């Protein structure tokens, strides 16, 4: 009995000592995080090199200089873009990251910028909340807007989320950058710009008309096309070409709303059931009719082979069934508001009669490795040829329900933005597909018969703060430094004026979802200093910024 007591005592004592050690250690950890009174840690702004985008290193330098002016030691660190992604998204090893979140049509629905960018669970390897923000109230809103199938109610949630996101400021939206595009007005007309795509949009592809020439529109871009396999594609530039050849069930209209496309009508039966009715008489380019069977096959195929781009959205799908020849019923596991724009508005309808034999009857074991050399879809353009590294030629599919007004499009790859600008000036190239260097646009503006201008965009340059590293772990600090950022200088000097100062993560161009009360902060160093002072930060004699004591 006594022995037992002794034992118990020893155990208690050991536990007490361990507990004490733990307490001491954890307080030490807290101290190490805050370092009261110490000089604020020096930091780097990671970004891409000028080869990839001349704007980024310049902007990073300008901002670093501004931060230095309040006594905080910050340097720009431009390195290879792939390493940016590796360090930030994969390893979370960075202080600040200057990046452009481009205006892909997938990002018009607020889910990406509200949920993916700010939900605490997205702070994971490959997740988009690389800032590591974790605010329970934002988490709640992010989840509920995702489940709210009623659009006007969802809008209220998204509005509220924007306010909170601005308040916690895990990133500073620097500038909404315009889509800087150019085209020859003596060769084509009726271009249809779209938010985030400019005149490179699908709506330009099918609506523009040729004024003079051979009926084909030469579209210039400075990046080679990589992949024509709809299952393996994972980058916006590939989708821009594939979407001409393949049809989608819905398409994002120029105003940003998902409109029925291959679908004639649809009905949301209840929050987890969607019924679609296909258009009748649609044909694939080889003459076979498009039916509900192809749609069911497409979705099942993407699930079976885990198509990387769609894997995330497909997780919300329970089952897909056909109802007669043209009807489809989709059953969701849980209500998921972005399902229509981000899955049904993105997935390409594959012809079952072709893809059911892949990979079995071709020389690959995995359809992701299938090159799809001659893509056959049901889209408004048919594939003609793809001369790798040089050009892709598609021609109008006259039997399409929305047949293009031109004979076809030739996508030409230029070695540089400068070469592309020269080709437009000489009339060798009719329009740009994607963004062109703003400074070149200024030169093209002066050329006769060239329209060179910026178009609205919901994409933006942003400065991400790693909110798990001091001093960036302090929301008050983040709020204060946002007032230091020289947005006007950046827009005028670096973007040649083709941008607007950034405030909310949902851009004003995205009219339906943007909360107009969330405005950009003015540049005001005195206010920033006051805010830092109120939060307890102080300056030493050399003017260096210190943590609160």
């Amino acid at each position, binding site marked *: 009995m006594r022995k037992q007591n002794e034992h118990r005592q020893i155990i208690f004592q050991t536990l007490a000592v361990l507990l004490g050690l733990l307490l001491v250690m954890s307080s030490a950890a807290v101290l190490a995080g805050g370092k009261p009174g110490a000089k604020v840690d020096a930091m780097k702004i990671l970004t891409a090199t000028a080869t990839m985008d001349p704007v980024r290193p310049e902007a990073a330098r300008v901002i670093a200089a501004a931060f230095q002016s309040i006594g905080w030691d910050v340097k720009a660190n431009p390195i*290879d873009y*792939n*390493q940016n*992604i*590796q360090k930030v*998204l*994969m390893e979370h090893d960075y202080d600040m990251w200057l*990046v452009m*979140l481009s205006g892909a049509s*997938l990002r018009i629905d607020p889910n990406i910028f509200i949920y993916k960018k700010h939900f605490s669970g997205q702070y*994971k*390897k*490959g*997740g*988009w909340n690389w800032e590591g923000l974790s605010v329970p109230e934002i988490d709640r809103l992010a989840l509920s807007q995702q489940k709210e199938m009623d659009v006007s109610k969802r809008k209220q949630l998204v509005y509220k989320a924007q306010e909170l996101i601005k308040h916690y400021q895990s990133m500073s939206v620097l500038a909404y950058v315009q889509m800087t595009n150019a085209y020859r007005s003596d060769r084509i007309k009726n271009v249809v710009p779209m938010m985030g795509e400019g005149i490179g949009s699908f709506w330009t592809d099918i609506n523009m008309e040729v004024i003079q020439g*051979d009926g*084909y529109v*030469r579209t210039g871009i400075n990046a*080679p096309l*990589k*992949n024509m*396999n709809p299952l*393996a594609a*994972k*980058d*916006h530039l590939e989708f821009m070409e594939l979407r001409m050849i393949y049809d989608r069930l819905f398409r994002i209209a120029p105003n940003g709303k998902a409109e029925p496309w291959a679908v004639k009508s649809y009905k949301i039966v209840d929050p987890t059931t969607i019924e679609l009715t296909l258009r009748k008489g649609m044909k694939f380019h080889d003459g076979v009719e498009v039916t509900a069977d192809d749609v069911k096959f497409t979705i099942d195929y993407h699930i079976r082979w*885990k198509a*990387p*781009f*769609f*894997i*995330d*959205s497909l997780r919300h799908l329970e089952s897909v069934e056909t109802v007669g020849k043209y009807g489809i019923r989709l059953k969701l596991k849980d209500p998921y508001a972005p399902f229509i724009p981000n899955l049904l508005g993105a997935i390409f309808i594959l012809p079952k009669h072709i893809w059911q034999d892949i990979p079995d009857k071709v020389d*690959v074991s*995995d359809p*992701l*490795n*299938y*090159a*799809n*050399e001659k893509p056959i879809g049901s889209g408004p353009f048919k594939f003609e*040829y793809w001369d*790798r*590294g*040089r*050009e892709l*030629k598609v021609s109008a599919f006259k039997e399409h329900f929305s047949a293009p007004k031109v004979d076809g499009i*030739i996508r*030409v*790859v*230029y*070695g*540089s933005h400068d*070469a592309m600008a*020269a*080709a437009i*000036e*000489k009339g*060798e*190239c009719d329009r740009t597909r994607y963004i062109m260097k703003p400074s070149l646009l200024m030169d093209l503006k002066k050329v006769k018969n060239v329209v060179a201008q910026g178009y609205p965009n919901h994409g933006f340059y942003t400065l991400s703060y790693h909110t798990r590293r001091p001093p960036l772990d302090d929301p008050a600090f983040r709020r204060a430094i946002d007032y230091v950022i020289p947005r006007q200088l950046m827009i005028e000097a670096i973007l040649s004026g083709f941008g607007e100062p950034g405030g909310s993560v949902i851009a004003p161009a995205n009219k339906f979802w943007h909360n107009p009360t969330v405005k950009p902060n003015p540049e005001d160093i005195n206010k920033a200093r006051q805010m830092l002072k109120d939060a307890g930060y102080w300056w030493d004699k050399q003017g260096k910024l210190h943590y609160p004591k």
Partner: protein
Amino acid sequence: MQEYIIRRIFYTLLTLFGVATILFFIFRIMPGDPTAQVISPALDEVAQARLKQAYGLDRPILMQYALYLKNMATLQWGRSFTSSRKVFDIMTYRFWNTIFLMGAGMCLVLVIGTGLGMVMAWRRQGPLDIGATVVALIFQSAPPFVSGLLLLMVLSYRLNLFPTGGMHTPGVTVGGGLAIFLSADFLHHLVLPTITVALYYLATPMLIMRDSMLEVMGSDFIELAKAKGLAPHVVMIKHAARNALLSVVTVSSLMVGFAIGGQVLVESVFSWPGMGQLMVEAASSHDYPVAQATFVVLAALVIFLNLVADISYCYLDPRIKLGKPTGS
């Protein structure tokens, strides 16, 4: 002689094996990840695992290495990560594009370079000697994108004599293979990049030819030839130039090898889809199969040309007799 050639071939293969091994590991040590290239929904963990599986990167590294060596040996170079196409097909296409460009450029360089070098040495310190040296050195020091852009600015943008780039006018299809040389459109596009390449590489063979000519011209047999009363151009071409050519052969074989991979700048200035651009694209997008294959082919080419130069020595220089002791 035969023994020497066999030994040389054996060493060549050993070198290639070494290069292939280094390349394999260097690309994998390089920071970055082939499954993380753009911020896209495909960065999700499940999606990444899926891509690794499709690329065969989920296997242990030594197994990947063994497979890689086997594939290299059997010329089964796998499929590109980014385009899913067979590496071999991508490479053949790009390889020929570069060969067209470099072939034209190198022919020009070698013919003009050796010719000029020969005459320059013969008329040493003359205006041609000094003028050509200065001009050639300027263009060698100026990176090709400077001379290329200048040519484009003047001849294309201003005078509108040549197209701004590409291999042919967009939308014009040209027959494959050698038929391409019969297409006026292609030749028209070839002019400016060829001149750029030629200007950049001209100095090397020209100056080497000049120097080795000078060396040869000091020899007794030249004096003898002159004393025999042979016409000067006969002495210059038949006696001096033939002997001086030897060093040009060595250098040009290496030059050609590097030119095939090293013309990234010319290719990007003129939007020419060749090997150099492919190498840069593949390396920067971590497309291992394409990057490895392009670098191995380039290395193989340089090593092979070196071998050819070594062996051709035996024929060009009668003094080199291998394997047997020679009396001088």
